[in-house]
């Protein structure tokens, strides 16, 4: 009999959109109609914009309903489950028919997210059913060199942002002679707007664990630590569950997988939310119970890492790729991508974009493909102005450079960085000075405070940006900004400081005229900087309805019924209440 399987996406994003309610309703329905289908949980498949998602699978059909509201769900129950009729207007994806999001799914190539939104992450068997823990068995009798060579061949590079070849990193740690070695998984995803690692941890925890174990085998480590930020409670919960399950199957512990002498234990360390702890030396300090402050490299963690022992650190996405590479073979993975950047990369596309969610594409794909073809271009049909890559450490790529391909070097050439995969889309309503200020506010408050330039220099930059957005900037401020930015980059110990000025530098590079407009014309072209927005009554259009006058909190509007109103600029606090209230478009905002 063809069993109907119904899966509800219960990632953090899905739950936030109401997926739990959907699941509960289906559960109740199922109790009333036992055996009508099999109800399962899964995680985010990446289409965050269309949550809650309900996957329907059977032999005939494989489709996804999207934006399943309570009302829509009843309709689906009535039509689909009761009568077998597909509710066409709710289908976002179907493998048989045209559906609005077919392209979104089909344009992607899933390695890292191969199991996300497919399996139930809380059930180890589901992972194993899809080839899970087979990679470790495949390398059971491999030597360290063999494993590392395979990774080297795959061309996998650090997905956390640095892009350092993973194989070489492992090689460095493997050649250290020491009885004690560590493998650390950096799950301290801190970039504003980035959630790739969270989704992977929530959706495929065993994939990450298997990757870590393989790394452990490759470098000769016996202990692993996953450093995960405490702000990811669901991820931590699922990781803990996964570790328990793995231990129960002797996938963790002593002589694991029956491999004589292969001991490997895995722990979770919850980070307290300091962004700088994503920097590997600060991360290690934090695990050791010290203040999260970076140290000078060399010595590299591979030589002297956790507690002074050789340590390999990679991030979540890097590790989750490893079992897939081993299983499929390095060549298959390396077939994707460009000469220097192999495989795929997951991006969290957010901001002013039609479809925001997770997208995994092969390296070498033009950014424009991700933005326009997969994610549908600007939100509400607005013109895209720029895409910010790499979060607070990255930079903006202006719309005319969006054909740049996803490749470490190609992106760096634009002044941005690949980063860990945050892709924030900006349109004409985004003020680029404000964007720079936003990211710098973040880095400034997240600086560990150690290095002079990062601690004080970024504050001074921020103060300048603040002045500019308030209309108090002078043209010399731009030189001062650039001067500070260059020196901070040149004189900081860790990546945080070295990259903190990037958002400012890249916006200055591509959007200098916006800065100048703020300074010279005292105007914010995107109409975002409150202090620089002006409101005036358009005399021709004003009908004297007094709506604006009544809405004004500071009584800055003069006027009587049926007479043209007037805004006294000196009393206006630029709150925009008049603009919003006016029904005759008689308020000019500029």
């Amino acid at each position, binding site marked *: 009999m063809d069993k109907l399987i119904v899966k509800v996406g219960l990632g953090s994003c899905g739950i936030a959109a109401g997926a739990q309610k959907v699941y509960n309703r289906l559960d109740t329905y199922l109790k009333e109609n036992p055996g009508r289908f099999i109800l399962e949980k899964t995680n985010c498949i990446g289409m965050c914009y269309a949550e809650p998602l309900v996957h329907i699978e059977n032999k005939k059909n494989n489709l996804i309903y999207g934006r399943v509201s309570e009302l829509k769900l009843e309709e689906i129950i009535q039509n689909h489950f009761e009568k077998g009729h597909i509710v066409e207007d709710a289908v976002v994806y179907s493998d048989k028919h045209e559906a609005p999001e077919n392209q979104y799914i089909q344009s992607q190539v899933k390695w890292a997210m191969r199991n996300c939104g497919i399996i139930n992450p809380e059930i180890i068997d589901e992972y194993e059913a899809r080839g899970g823990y087979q990679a470790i068995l495949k390398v059971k009798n491999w030597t360290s060199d063999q494993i590392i060579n395979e990774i080297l061949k795959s061309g996998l590079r650090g997905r956390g942002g640095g892009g350092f070849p993973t194989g070489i990193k492992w090689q460095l740690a493997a050649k250290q002679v020491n009885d004690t070695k560590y493998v650390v998984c950096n799950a301290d995803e801190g970039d504003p707007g980035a959630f790739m690692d969270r989704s992977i941890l929530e959706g495929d925890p065993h994939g990450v664990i298997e990757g870590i174990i393989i790394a452990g085998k490759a470098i000769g480590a016996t202990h692993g630590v996953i450093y995960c930020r405490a702000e990811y409670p669901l991820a931590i919960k699922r990781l803990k569950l996964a570790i328990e399950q793995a231990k129960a199957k002797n996938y963790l512990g002593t002589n694991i997988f029956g491999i004589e002498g292969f001991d490997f234990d895995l722990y979770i360390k919850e980070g307290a939310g300091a962004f700088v702890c994503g920097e590997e030396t600060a991360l290690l300090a934090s695990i050791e119970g010290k*203040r999260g402050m970076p140290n000078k490299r060399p010595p590299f963690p591979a030589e002297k890492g956790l507690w002074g022992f050789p340590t390999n650190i990679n991030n979540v996405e890097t590790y989750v790729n490893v079992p897939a590479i081993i299983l499929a073979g390095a060549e298959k993975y390396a077939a994707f991508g460009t000469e220097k950047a192999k495989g795929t990369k997951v991006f969290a596309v957010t901001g002013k974009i039609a479809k925001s969610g997770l997208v995994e594409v092969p390296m070498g794909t033009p950014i424009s493909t991700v933005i326009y073809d997969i994610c549908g271009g600007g939100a509400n049909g607005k013109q895209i102005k720029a895409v910010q890559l790499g979060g607070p450490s990255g930079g903006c790529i202006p719309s005319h450079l969006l054909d740049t391909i996803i490749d470490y070097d190609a992106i760096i050439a634009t002044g941005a960085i690949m980063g860990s995969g945050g892709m924030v889309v900006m349109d004409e309503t985004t003020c680029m000075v404000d964007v720079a200020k936003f990211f710098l506010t973040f880095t400034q408050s997240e600086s560990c405070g*150690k290095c002079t330039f990062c601690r004080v220099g970024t*504050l001074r930059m921020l103060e300048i940006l603040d002045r500019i957005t308030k209309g108090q900037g002078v043209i010399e401020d731009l030189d001062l900004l650039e001067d500070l930015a260059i*020196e901070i980059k*040149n*004189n900081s110990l860790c990546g945080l400081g070295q990259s903190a000025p990037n958002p400012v530098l890249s916006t200055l590079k591509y959007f200098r005229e916006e800065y100048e407009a703020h300074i010279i014309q005292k105007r914010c072209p995107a109409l975002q900087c409150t202090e620089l927005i002006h409101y005036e009554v358009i005399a021709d259009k004003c009908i004297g309805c007094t709506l604006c006058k009544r809405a004004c909190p500071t009584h800055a509007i003069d006027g009587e019924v049926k007479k043209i109103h007037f805004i006294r600029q000196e009393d206006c606090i630029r709150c925009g209440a008049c603009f919003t209230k006016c029904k005759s478009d008689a308020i000019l905002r500029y």
Partner: protein
Amino acid sequence: MSELINIKLNGTKLKVSPGETILNICLEQGYDIPHLCHDPKLKPFSSCFVCVVEIKGFKAHQPSCSTIVQEGMEIFTDTPEVRKSRKMALELMLSNHYADCLAPCTQTCPAGVDIQGYLSLTEKGLFQQAVELIKETNPLPAICGRVCVRPCEDKCRRQYTEDGVPVGIDYLKRFVSDFDLVSESPVTPKVKESTGKKVAIIGSGPAGLTAAYYLQIEGVQADIYEKAEGVGGWLRYGIPEYRLPNAIVDQEVANITKLGVQIFTNQELGGNLQYETLDQNYDAVFLSIGAQNGDLLGIGEKPAPNLISGIDFLKNNALTNNDTDLSGKRVVVVGGGNTAMDCCRSARRCGSDDVIVLYRRTEADMPANPIEIHESKLEGVQYIFLAAPVDVYYDEQGNLTGLKCIKMKAEKVPGSRRSNIVPIEGSEFDLPCDLVLPATGQKIQYEVLDHINQNYPDQDLQLNKWKTLDADESTMQMNIPKIFAAGDAVTGPTNIIQAIAGGKKAAQYLTAFVLELPFEIPKKPFISTKDSFTKQTKDLYLNKFEYHPKNEMPVLDAQKRANFKEVELGYQSVEEVQSEVARCLECGCVAFYDCDLQKYSTEYEAVQTHYKGDYQVFERTTAHEKLELDNHKCILCGRCVRVCKEYSGNRVWEFFKRGSKTYISVNMEYDLAASRCDACGLCIDTCPTGALTENFSFKILPAPYKKLPVIDPFGSEGFEADLLDYKGNIYGATARTGIVNHKGLINRDLFFNYPIFNKSNRIKTPMERVNGKLVPITIQQALEKIKKAVRQVDNADNVLLVSPEMTNEAMYMVQKWARVGLQTNSIGSPYLMNRTKASNLDKNDILPLQELEGTRQIFVLGGDLPQDHPVISHLIQNHRYFNKSEITFITTEQNHPYSFRTDHTLKIADSYYFIKAVCHYLVHTEKMFGIFVNGLAKEWTPYRDAIIKYDYAQLLNKAGVEASVIENFAQILIDIPETAFILSEKNTDEKTMTELKNLMLLTEKQGKTFSGMVVLKPACNTQGLFDMGIYPDYGPGFRKMEGSYLELLKNHWHTSRLSTNFSCPGDALQKESPKNLFIFGLNVIHDTPELNDMIKKSSFICVQSLFENETTQIADLVLPMNFAVEIGGSFTSSFKVAQTFQAVKKSKIDWNDYQFYAQLHQSFDIQSPKHYSEIFLEMISLLQPSCCSDNRHCFIINN
């Protein structure tokens, strides 16, 4: 050793050791790379980023302090880019450095007088040192103390507190200067040898006198030519006597002429003195001619006999000895400055009952000193404000009969401080009067300049736009190179302190000019100031300081002022002075002269306001008795955090918050006073700025201290240190890295207890007790008294007790005197009580300090190491921090705080039985190192037999531990060869120590590298007591007084007889016969009360002591004594390392121990040297030829 690697440093090829940091190599190579967060004894941190360098192939700059050199590295340390980065790093730090380098008073003073400095010295009663300090920048303090306009007080922060008025800086200056003027030997600077150069000075006003003073000090003959009959210029002829008595001027001038300055009066340049003559006879000319032409009303008035410029009036009055008679006359003084005040108050004193000051602005606008205005009103002077003369009435004789005045009104000018004054139309009024004294301005006498110019056909002396002399601002040189100028002639009429500043500056460059040296204009020192951040106002200071009203200046009663007697009387008591000094808020930073941030900021010409923005404001942490933290000055280098972690082990300091909000505070944010901090002082010592300082019990004295190298006189580890000296007093101590102190650590006792060197109650002369009181006597008399006492008792009844804080040389001399002079061997020290010779460990049995870092296991046996021997505790902690060694603390105390800093704590009941139990266990189970004990150790068999007899269970019981503890402990000793025991002699009895020595033999820990025991002695030279023979039957070198050694001594000491009665001091004192007790440097009555009865039985007690104390109170004869640092010598450390040191500190008393001992020897017919180096040579020849003593490798049976 690993092979050297090749690098290129600033283009030079070098071979360097791998693993070295770039900074270390650069410093070695002499490249002065600035660095703030780096301390060589700490793990590299790299936070300040001022040490950055450029490395070829690296995109970014690298911090040199943590970058390890690599083969082929090309490093550049001084490129413009690197300099730019360093400067920005400094400026960014400074933009959050809401703190003052210098006190605002000092910053404001035109002459830069170190006000905070002399106030601090005044607080300490060092009045003449205060004057010395003032005279470094101002040679006329008694004059300035009376009539300075006190710009310093305007800026004094005290005025923002509840008291509302500044510190009476000038009053205090006057007090110390007057104290000095009447003292027996007023402060006189050292005059350098004559250079043969000469400078002519025109005018004897403050600028001229000042220039002369500093020129003469530099060895340049200064000749002053004065037009008038009297000396002083404006000081004598401008300022009335009731403010500045001529006698004071004469005294200060005398202090200048005393240096060799010549003053020729009645010499008018252009009159009876020709410039040509000066030009021929002098190497340079200094014009300090003042601005002597007083302005009149300037309203087109005709001259009149009763219209006299204010300054002419004052001058005439001074010339006639205040003989002007103005009784019955109405006098109108026009103007509102200090000259106007001098005029009106003088006019009152000349008999006028009707003196009116006419001023065109308001009272608040008056430039005159408010005190002057106040006093003038008290004296009956009337004021008409907001009015100005517009015309003058004359009688037929051409005398002025009155003024026509007009009323004025003030109009606010937006953006301007002062309002605009405009006449009120039609408000004219008449002011009849008999004498008008305009005091509105002065000009220089251009005739003099014309006269000089005649000698220079090609050019004239250049004037500036104010028509005063256009001297170069930095050097005071004129356009004619050999002519310099300063004072009012350059600045226009201003004040004395400006003139002094100009005179001083001119002297500096005149000296360079006449000696044909290049003009070196120093870099302006960087000065951080709170004013760079925000205007200092009341709201920042209220409720922060104790209310302490100003001590007002006592003045002559207003009724008694109808004369020219001085009105201000000066402070009358030291109490008043100290109460006023106490009001000083000590704004300047104590670390100013030692601050690396300041030093580099000056070097890199950093500007504090370059990156102005938000800054952090904190409360100062002052609750701790010893430490104080001012976060404003903190640059977050983390040196305190790290030194506390890496050396103290207490982890008191930690970083808090993130980003620009980061700050340093007490770990877990407990109150510092309640924290684990045990005030070791390391954090203060390492702080590169003034953020962490001592919590001083006195007013801080920021000064360029002289570093006096010493060997720690408070600890027995022989650690090198520096005392911080200023004019003979000690204001602190700091670590000095040396052979022993290779990490640069300092002992807490020295760090905080240095004030003992400044204590004032030193014994200054020998004193004998007469009728129960000590009275001074001469040295000869003292020697006679000693001889007399010695004659009265049997030889053996002379008993000597010696302090372990004396130098080896002093001990040796005392011992030699005892044995040769007194024929007694009853010599000892309370520190050796209950100690036999077994306590004198062989040097080979002591773990050398350097080997401590090779140990893997350290046992600290009892005591309180961090308290009693902090430097050793620090070294051990550091060793532990880097995971090289485990520390186990064996203690009998419950919850000892030291346990927090060790890996394990072993709680036992008794350490002797504990060790004994271990020994028993090892012998019983035959786990000892059999080959060694059988083959090499002496007394093995009897020891084995003795120890085996003990009942193990009983031993365990007494040790208070389980058998397993003993067994585990023994196993560690067997398993880990690199094991050390650290114990403090103070807390360890001899039995425990010797039993431990047995244990060392059993486990072969003695004499082996990285293992053995360290017995830390209580006082700096406790070991010297043994080595110098402060022991009845053992002589110098700790050799038994018998056989050939006895002969050697006789030969060496040129004596035929030495007593072989070796009774110990205790036994001798117990005897009933009359006894002489000689106590050297010990306060036995206080320190060893158990000996008191015994001591008091002595018939004659002679005490040598630094201070009067309980023991000197019972003495019949008291002798002065030196601190070791005053006489030099050597100490022997706990590690048996003898270290010599020089006499670095001048003795405050006229006394030298060595000379006295030599005299003492002489009076007993002993030939002895009197310099410590000669004593050392004599003493050293008596020491053991080899290190091996007879008790090496010998078991000791304890019962």
